[in-house]
């Protein structure tokens, strides 16, 4: 499967609260960042957690966020960032700023 997003593209993380085993921390949901790199495809941990091993592999990305965008009260440097691994089904194209 080719990757939907490419390096440098702006994305936002889905603001969803599904039940089950998730690898998308709450603090990153709903936030906008930039694809740092496109990783391989891996088994979907949300399925593997329940022993379902025959589902399709899912694309993983590393996405970079400014800490200023995550925490309104952030007191560090403007350029400080966090890189986090997110699966494709948690990402959508970022909306243009109004």
């Amino acid at each position, binding site marked *: 499967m080719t990757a939907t997003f490419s390096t440098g593209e702006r994305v936002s993380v889905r603001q969803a609260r599904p039940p089950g085993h998730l690898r998308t921390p709450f603090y990153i949901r709903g936030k906008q960042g930039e694809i740092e790199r496109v990783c391989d495809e891996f088994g979907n941990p949300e399925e593997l957690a329940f022993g379902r091993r025959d589902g399709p592999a899912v694309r993983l990305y*590393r996405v970079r966020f400014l*800490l200023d965008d995550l925490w309104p009260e952030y007191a560090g440097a403007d350029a400080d960032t966090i890189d986090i*691994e997110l699966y494709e089904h948690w990402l959508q194209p970022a909306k243009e700023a109004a």
Partner: protein
Amino acid sequence: MSDGGHDHDHQHDHGHTHDHGDDHAPPSDEDGALTHYQMLEIAMRELLIEKGVITADEVRAGVEEMDGRTPERGARVVARAWLDPDFKERLITDGPAACAELEIDVSPARLTVVENTNDVHNVIVCTLCSCYPRPLLGLPPSWYKSSSYRSRTVREPRVVLEEFGTLIPNDVAVRVHDSTADLRYMVLPQRPTGTENMAEAELAALVTRDSMIGTSVVAAP
């Protein structure tokens, strides 16, 4: 304890007292009741051994192998990368393949090496659990698994670093890496000045565990 319970009045009748200041006092971490997951692990292991799937010696050897991994492995990788720019390039592009050149097997970890520069200081954390580059650094320190380190490193990394005695100037970006999924990270620290004439083994001896987590830097000798 004929009733099967354990009263805590310490009226034991076996001829000595438990002085917890005594060097020979037993470690207390085995005294509590087993947790659900400890019981699950024991039950699973005993069943697998009973059914001949694995042997007790294989379990023992596995634990021995895990305990044998130390940050010296990571330090060897760092020292080589400092001396050999081509190796460094390969290490950053494909961590597992580069480590295999030094006969270090990092599988099944998808090792991703992040390099500190004059402009960027990297630090690793796993907010969801305690993912850690075990093949290169061994078992994680207890603070790495603490909820305090895990929650605060993504929120106020510079404050956390300062508590480790690591002051990053504001013109150097702090880049936090949250190991949420399938990759594992190791920081490639900067080579300190004054080490220009040092051999690979001498360089490796300078590299500390925390400098490869990113909570510290490698000090000049």
